[in-house]
């Protein structure tokens, strides 16, 4: 099933919006019913295509937020202020609407148990979406691969999947740490700054443990995190990156 998801035909399909979930002020999850969906691997994404009445089309890629084991396909979209597609998906889309998409795509930024670990997941802003799919998959298969996640966001209100991540963090195999970069609540015990070398050194697995690292977020964030991890001795071949367009982190 997983291999078919990668090698199967990549055709445009129509999904129906089943449910919409507000994750934060700017972020919404879209639950889709897709009768022809072939299944996917954690970390993959889809291309979404919108068509206006005059035939104008716009296309963007969105990471799949759901695990392969989840019942429905879920996309999580952040509204970009000057975006063309994201405001439509985050604000206008309604249950019952149809959404044209193709996928799943991606064979590089994926995790499954055969790839091993320990895992270090580094998320900047909405870069958490594909990493959350990996965490859900990890939990669904009962994996005992140890996982650490570092999630950088501007403020606590902007942390996506907060409750779910707190629950996962309560389990002994997953360690989730947050770095808030612009504002934090009184008494905040997590990090209060942008990620930097010292922070990564504290949180990351030691290079000697040869973790498998996945970094996802805005380009600047990804390059800082990945570059710093290499400086700390991590093997570049064990660091996988996915750069998003500009978001806040």
């Amino acid at each position, binding site marked *: 099933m997983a291999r078919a998801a990668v090698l199967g035909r990549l055709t445009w399909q*129509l999904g129906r919006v089943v449910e919409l979930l507000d994750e934060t002020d700017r972020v919404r999850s879209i639950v889709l019913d897709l009768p022809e969906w072939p299944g996917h691997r954690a970390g993959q994404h889809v291309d979404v295509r*919108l*068509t*206006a009445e005059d035939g104008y089309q716009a296309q963007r890629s969105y990471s799949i937020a759901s695990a392969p084991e989840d019942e429905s396909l879920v996309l999580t979209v952040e509204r970009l202020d000057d975006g*063309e597609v994201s405001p439509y998906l985050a604000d*206008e889309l309604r249950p019952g*609407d149809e959404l044209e998409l193709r996928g799943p795509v991606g064979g590089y930024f994926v995790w499954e148990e055969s790839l091993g670990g320990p895992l270090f997941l580094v998320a900047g802003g909405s870069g958490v979406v594909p990493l959350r799919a990996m965490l859900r998959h990890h939990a669904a298969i009962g994996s005992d691969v140890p996982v650490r996640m570092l999630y950088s966001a501007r403020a606590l209100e902007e942390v996506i999947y907060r409750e779910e991540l707190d629950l996962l963090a309560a389990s002994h195999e997953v360690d989730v740490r947050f770095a808030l970069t612009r504002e934090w609540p009184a008494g905040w015990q997590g990090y209060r700054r942008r990620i930097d070398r010292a922070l990564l050194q504290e949180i990351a697995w030691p290079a000697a443990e040869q973790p498998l690292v996945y970094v996802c977020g805005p380009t600047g964030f990804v390059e800082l995190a990945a570059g710093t991890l290499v400086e700390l001795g991590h093997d570049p071949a064990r660091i996988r990156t996915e750069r998003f367009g500009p978001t806040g982190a």
Partner: protein
Amino acid sequence: MSPISRGFRGRRRAEADPARVPPGQYVTDDFPVLSAGPTPHHPIESWSFTIQGAVDEPVSWTWAELQALPSETVTVDIHCVTKWSKLDTVWTGVSLDALLEGVETSAEYVTAFSDGGYTTNLPLEDVRGGKAWVAYEFGGEPLEPEHGGPARLLVPHLYFWKSAKWVRGLELREEDEPGFWETYGYHNYGDPWREQRYSGD
């Protein structure tokens, strides 16, 4: 045919007199940044603009020399092949007529070349007669790097891929040579009013 996405309208379009909008274009108030590569940052102290190729001797201007030339401020409409148009844009720069003055050549074509390796080709007559500039200000402000600063070619009567960002000079040629996008299937000339987007249009 794709189904219509209910309620999707795309980027907010600006109102415009249809007579000013070439076929297939949408008018925007934004100024989208389209790029084929990283923004170059060439130090201004070593920047130059050169006219070379089918000439007796190349002619070159440093940044200071370019700034010292008489400049013009023009208001023009610009049209990108990706379908957006922006009306009444204001640019300041040196006319190509001023730069080509005194340059004798039998060349009929030019290839504009830029930092970062980008090129685009035009007939020489399309950069003469008040139709082209080396522009270094947009809207009265120094041209930003992401929009082609310190200076870009400005040839508004053709699709905007011909207005090479980060321009460093013109190669005068007796034979036409397709530039970057022209090589990949875009139209050799690129007249928005005849909708010459792709080779064969």
